[in-house]
């Protein structure tokens, strides 16, 4: 267990390092550092994904797939970063210095169009862009709950953050040339991810696919290149992080109590665990973007901001909300409602205040930001607007 916390802290170090670094070298350094601890975390402390008593895939498979996908993505991004470094001639990995350098002497647009896809695809693997997303749901499903929470809640945002900060910030012309393609891909994320989530029977797989579906909205918001949509994308990164962490925590609790995540086996847990069931309903509502939750604000901003630019993807995205509602409600119904099952008579609720605290905090922040998003959006807007203006120039 000591080792578990060592790797967990390494993972957190890597994640924070990426968000804090203003230097391409350290950006990549921490990015890789965040990927590798996932391997032992899932491989040692994870669980095989079983359906109807049969192993669908093992944790070894899931963790190896995750590590190889993310490393391949990282090295593709590394090629882009090194190319960018050499092409800039600024002899610096410092992002602000590079930006100033490019303001004075813009990089050749045709070169930008070469480098941008390397960065977008490389970092996009972790975002995860369709069709490179398949590592993510199975990785979530096999990981221990705490790792799933951190992974879906924070780690996956590294990809979209990197695209905003590095790819768009340093390669405006490349961004303009390629982002329409990104918009097309993220429609696939939203719709395809949603449909696949509908078909799943493992609770964690449902939430895993829903994450890749929701990250489609984030990428759509990025691709729109309007300040409003970008604000929405960043806000959704935040909101989805909370919502999905809540969902994984709930699934973790259900799994601890019932030792199964297989939807047909579950049911009626609202009788034994009313608090958990309530939180589950709240998570489902937040996930499907009901007004009052932060997700609603974020998705609305993306749709409004994106309407002028890409009406068709936005329409598809709105349709995706319906799909989300379908699978989330199906999950809630299957796990929490229905007649109580005798096999789970011993199941416990989260009893003590200490055990309930994480859920309460997550729900409270979702609600507060959903009802009063102004301060957060102002904060996001302060850095998002200059970025869009730089690209539009």
């Amino acid at each position: 267990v000591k080792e578990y916390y060592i790797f967990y802290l390494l993972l957190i170090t890597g994640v924070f390092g990426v968000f804090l670094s203003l230097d391409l070298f350290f950006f990549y350094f921490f990015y890789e550092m965040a990927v590798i601890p996932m391997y032992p975390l899932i491989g040692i402390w994870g669980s095989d994904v079983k359906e109807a008593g049969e192993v669908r895939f093992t944790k070894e498979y899931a963790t190896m797939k995750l590590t190889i996908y993310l490393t391949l993505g990282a090295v593709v991004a590394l090629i882009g970063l090194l190319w960018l470094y050499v092409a800039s001639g600024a002899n610096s990995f410092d992002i602000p210095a590079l930006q100033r350098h490019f303001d004075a002497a813009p990089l050749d647009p045709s070169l930008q169009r070469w480098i941008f896809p390397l960065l977008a695809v490389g970092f996009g693997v972790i975002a995860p862009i369709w069709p490179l997303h398949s590592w993510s749901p199975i990785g979530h499903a096999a990981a221990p709950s705490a790792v799933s929470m951190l992974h879906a809640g924070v780690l996956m945002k590294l990809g979209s953050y990197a695209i905003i900060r590095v790819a768009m910030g340093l390669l405006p012309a490349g961004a303009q040339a390629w982002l329409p393609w990104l918009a097309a891909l993220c429609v696939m994320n939203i719709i395809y991810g949603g449909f696949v989530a509908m078909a799943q029977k493992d609770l964690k797989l449902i939430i895993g696919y829903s994450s890749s579906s929701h990250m489609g909205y984030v990428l759509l918001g990025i691709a729109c290149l309007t300040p409003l949509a970008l604000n929405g994308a960043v806000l959704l990164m935040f909101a989805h992080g909370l919502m999905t962490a809540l969902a994984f925590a709930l699934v973790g609790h259900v799994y601890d109590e019932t030792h199964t995540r297989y939807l047909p086996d579950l049911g009626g847990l609202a009788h034994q665990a009313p608090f958990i069931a309530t939180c589950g309903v709240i998570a489902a509502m937040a996930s499907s973007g009901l007004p009052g939750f932060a997700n609603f604000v974020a998705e609305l901003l993306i749709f409004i901001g994106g309407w002028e630019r890409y009406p068709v993807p936005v329409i598809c995205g709105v349709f995706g909300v319906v799909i989300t509602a379908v699978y989330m409600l199906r999950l809630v119904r299957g796990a929490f409602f229905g007649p109580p099952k005798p096999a789970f008579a011993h199941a416990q609720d989260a009893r003590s205040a200490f055990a309930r605290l994480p859920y309460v905090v997550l729900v409270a922040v979702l609600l507060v930001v959903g009802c009063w998003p102004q301060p957060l959006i102002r904060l996001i807007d302060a850095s998002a607007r200059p970025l869009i203006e730089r690209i539009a120039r």
Partner: protein
Amino acid sequence: MDWAVLSVELTACAWILVLLIADLAMPTARERPLWIIALGGIAACAIALWRAPTSGSFQGLVVADAFGATVKGLLLLTAGVVILMTRAAQRQLPSNLGAFFLLLFTALLGMLVLAAIGDLLMLFLGLELLTFSLYIMAAYLTTDRRAIEAGMKYLILGSVSSGFLVFGIALLYGFAGSTHFSVLRAALASGPVPLTAQAGFLLILAGLGFKVAAVPFHLWVPDVYEGAPTPVVALLSVGSKMAGVVALARVLDEVFLPLEPMWGELLAVLSAATMCYGNLAAIPQTNIKRLLGYSSIGHAGYLLMGLSAGPSGLPAVGYYLLAYLLSNLTAFLVVLVVAEALGSDALEDYRGLSQRSGFVAAALFIALLSLAGVPPLAGFVGKLFVLLAAVESQRLWLVAIGAVNVAISLYYYLMVVKRMYLERPRAGGAIRVAPLTAALLGLLVLGILVIGVVQEPFLRHFAAALRL
């Protein structure tokens, strides 16, 4: 004549005699403190190195410069670690340690010469001294079939490559009338290069390609790695490769620089082939020493990538060598400890190693991740600098291949990690590590971490040593 230039080599020579006398004078029990005498020799060489001049040359045959001195320091470090490794190798090196240390010092002498060559003849001498010692050391266990096979294979393929090398030197001598680097370089720069000289260059490249285990001269690697005693393999994979790379770097950048457009491309192609072959062939291996053998072929590819960038890539190559040295020595030390405890190098026997000895498993974990190039470990920085050098020389295709190979290599390194951490051990029993070995292992792992996190002083040292 400037004898001071040769002070390190002469000290090593003298210590060969000391060892010979000590071996004769001491009784023939295994517990004799011969290893302390050998370590004393390394210390004496290190002192000589510290006091040696960093400029000048011995009649142009052997040169003294800061780069050579740095490499010599690393070679001495490698030899020292190998000597300490023999302490743990009770089973693999049961007797005749006196002769073993003797051969180790002759090999070291060869490597030291290779690090400072200024003449093609010295290249040949150093190389032969090194490989001949290694032939005998590879077949050290005369009762073990695999060791004999390893020594035999190494001898035959090594002799062929030496033949190539001599023939190449002869052709170049015929072209320029001298084997001095400076004369050769002037001749190459002054006018059109005839076909014979180009052929001479290719033959020398083949001879050195054998030493660094580059495709297509790699055939000996897996068998020798599997059959030879582990301390010998450690010396072979780290010291011998380092000496080969440095000799290659000197030949390329001090003699054949006028031909850089030609060999730059050639080396890049060789590098790509070497990386892909080594890393892909490592995947199905079931023996850890074979696996590390193929992985060392893969690393030769990265080193060639750095060399293909010309003189500006040399600091990256130096850093890579340093990282490779620490990571690979750690890996082989663990392999040795495990083989001594379990009597096997099969990957199957690494199952559940973390439960039998957490420390040993963690050391191998870190060493393998460093070899794969994961931050914040040494290998990552080495790979990054080498890739950067390749980008700077405008070979993006090579960078792409190198980057993809990082992921491939991570796969098979993680398969070892998976066995150690994710699977249950077949037989119980904790593995005990002697305090000396544990301390050495700890220091090596610490080195991997330090070099991964603190890059600047080392890189600056290499850049300054190369006067860039």
